[in-house]
């Protein structure tokens, strides 16, 4: 479903701030893979997701989604394939627009937007039913402006929007990091459910090792712009936090104490 072939990206090349964010990264996801991504700050996790989403062009390598080469496509042209939830809850929704208008925008992700009415009656019933899944009572506030919602509500809405039009790939970039623990747990559970029920292929970055172990069928660890650990299937199910820390130390060759700082 996703093929990342040897991509590299260097920010601010030739300057004192030069940062080799991705260095010949390879990653291949099968259909229905739910991959959790961990790694220290600056490991290249978000950079990898942004490369796939097309926030900027990569320097080398190619990216294929379901066999389509998207390397040369700008962000909005990749949208038909990709659903996204950002770390910042404010980033995934249009604050000045109503809940149903936001859903309608997401429902037309990657489609031509013509002069037909923006939200139809039929859609409204569909949105109401989808909003009920969230259990936040938003189905009764569909004409409320999104700016009036809390961060957690907005993030849950963004998640719903990302999957409204089934994406080939769902990108979750630390999407619970800015939420309080209770809300974060709820949004995470919801993510799990949406991925499972729609059979989505997903990449989820998290700073929480426990979450990374508990969710998904595959786990990758990144360091210095490369994938240094890739565990899936039975092996992943048996994984513990201590294992991860140890493996990180083995592969990255760093002392365990500093890893704790890096990872937790």
């Amino acid at each position, binding site marked *: 479903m996703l093929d990342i072939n040897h991509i590299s990206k260097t920010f601010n090349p030739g300057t004192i701030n030069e940062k080799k964010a991705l260095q010949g990264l390879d990653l291949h996801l099968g259909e229905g893979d739910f991959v959790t991504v961990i790694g220290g700050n600056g490991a290249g996790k978000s950079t990898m997701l942004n490369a796939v*989403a097309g926030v900027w062009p990569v320097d080398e390598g190619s990216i294929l989604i379901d066999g389509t080469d998207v390397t040369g496509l700008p*962000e*909005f*042209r990749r*949208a*038909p394939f*990709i659903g*996204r939830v*950002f770390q910042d809850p404010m*980033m*995934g*929704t*249009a*604050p*000045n*627009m109503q809940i149903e*208008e936001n859903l*309608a*925008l*997401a429902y*037309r*992700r*990657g*489609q031509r*937007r*013509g*002069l*037909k*009415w*923006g*939200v139809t009656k039929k859609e409204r019933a569909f949105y109401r039913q989808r909003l009920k899944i969230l259990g936040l009572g938003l189905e009764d506030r569909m004409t409320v402006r999104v700016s009036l919602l809390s961060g957690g509500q907005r993030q849950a809405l963004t998640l719903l*929007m990302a999957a409204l039009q089934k994406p080939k790939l769902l990108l979750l970039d630390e999407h619970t990091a800015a939420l309080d623990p209770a809300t974060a747990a709820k949004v995470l559970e919801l993510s799990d459910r949406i991925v499972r029920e729609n059979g989505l292929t997903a990449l989820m970055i998290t700073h929480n090792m426990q979450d990374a172990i508990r969710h998904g069928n595959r786990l990758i660890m990144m360091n210095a712009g490369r994938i240094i650990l890739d565990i899936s299937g039975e092996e992943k199910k048996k994984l513990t936090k201590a294992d991860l820390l140890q493996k990180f130390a083995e592969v990255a060759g760093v002392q365990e104490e500093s890893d704790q700082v890096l990872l937790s």
Partner: protein
Amino acid sequence: MELAAYFASLDPVNLLKSLPGGVAQGIVWGVMALGVYITFRLLDIADLTVDGSFTTGGAVTAMLILGGWPAWAGVLAAILAGMLAGLCTGLLHTRFGIPAILAGILTQFALYSINLHIMGMAANKSVNPDKFPVFITSRHVPAAILTGLVIAAVLVAVLYWYFGTEQGSAVRATGSNPAMSRALGINIDSMKVLGLGLSNGLVALAGGLMTQYQGFADVNMGRGAIVIGLAAVIIGEVVCAAIFRKGTNFGVRLGFIIAGGVLYYAVMTLILWLKLNSNDLKLFTAIIVAVFLAVPYLQAQAKSSFKLAGRRGRAAEKGGSEHA
């Protein structure tokens, strides 16, 4: 004594006489403000092209009417010319990475020369309503008000429809959250160009109406248009929010922008009636706009600010120590 003489010299009949004319002009500027609303509020761009494109609309209309075209065709051509100006600003901004405000200034600057060319290098072209078929003129103010209202109502209806469509929603989304819009597959560069084109088309239309109303096109007729447009938008919004406290339908809000233009001109007429120097009008306008722009910020400050927090904190401390 002087004050008494001053008040005695003010003639209420004169005010009543000049007020309808102000209303008619206000409606035309309200139409212009609809264009400003699209960029300023929906796209979140302060577009300064309008000072030029208002004149462009006026110049095109004047020349075509003088060339024997029907007035409505002149106004249609004006709309197209205005859209072209907006397109220019949009492309400077999106294709060449020039900040929107600067792109607007550049286009506006260039339009001064272009407008002179349109008018055959004359700074002023008169369109005598006795000789040429205009459909809105200061010779017949009541008819002008009626025509203006009909045009405004049609435009409000069209805009209400357009911004409710999929495409119009995409334009609004671009202004509200560009990052999200891109992620949802909206070409935000195209939407900005589209919005700027639409906006300047409306502004040029207003310029075409103004030329007919006042009976001439002038190369400086658009000077300060952005400020007057902003004034109409903001006055309209404030009045609308005061009447509909719980918020209201988009179409009604657009209607209040026209009302904002009318109110602005009513105030200007009043100021002139009070025999204040007409050279100071721009100063008054700027002050009005600054005050209205500051109101929402100051209201927020009144509810929550460091000053207030500090005062509350000191009061609580004092109260606490008394209890201790």
